[in-house]
């Protein structure tokens, strides 16, 4: 099982998925931003590439944020008192 518990892995996984969805929406994805249909083959080619860059950026950003949580969970010393009690 290693250092990470099942809960840790679930948090890590959800962080990646939720970050992806949030970036997709606030970044003006297909759901929120209207954009006219391309009227030429070149415009379609450009749009296809920009969509690819957009999705790739979201995946990388989600992995980045997810990895941040991964490190927090991995190196979190749970035996250390929180100082609040």
């Amino acid at each position, binding site marked *: 099982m290693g250092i990470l518990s099942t809960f840790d892995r679930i948090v890590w996984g959800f962080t990646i998925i939720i970050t992806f969805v949030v970036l997709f929406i606030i970044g003006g994805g297909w759901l929120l931003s209207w954009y006219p249909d391309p*009227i*030429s*083959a*070149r415009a379609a080619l*450009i749009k296809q590439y920009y969509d*690819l860059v957009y999705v790739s950026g979201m995946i990388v950003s989600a992995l980045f944020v997810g990895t941040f949580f991964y490190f927090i969970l991995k190196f979190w010393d749970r035996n250390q008192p929180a100082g609040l009690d």
Partner: protein
Amino acid sequence: MNTLEKLEWATIVGATVLLFGLGTLAVPVLQALDDPDYYGEPDYVVKVTAEQWAWKFTYPDGSESGELIIKNGDLVRLELESPDVIHSFYVREMGFKVDIIPGKTRIHIINAETPGEYWIQCAEFCGAYHGGMRTKLIIEE
């Protein structure tokens, strides 16, 4: 190899693949955007003059209009010039902008494939009435 080393290698390999993958896929897009010879010989040339705050289109027969009117299927070479400040020729449905810099002639080829009326909007702030500097691209049947 521990987990951190695996993660480090996965990041390095992943980033490299992504960088070169997107770079390779960008080449045909950049060629289509920037290479004036990409579509071959154009059917005719239209001179585009962008000035504060209007568009003027001059056709091969010397006629002029305030709207760009072309026929469906035409391959049109636009020669864009500005006598005053920087403007930008933007047709949203065509997916590109061309900055028009005073003293230079910018070349852009457009391929009319879908009849209709589309906005041409100046996309570079050019003064008080920049927002009103727009006209129509009319692609006739």
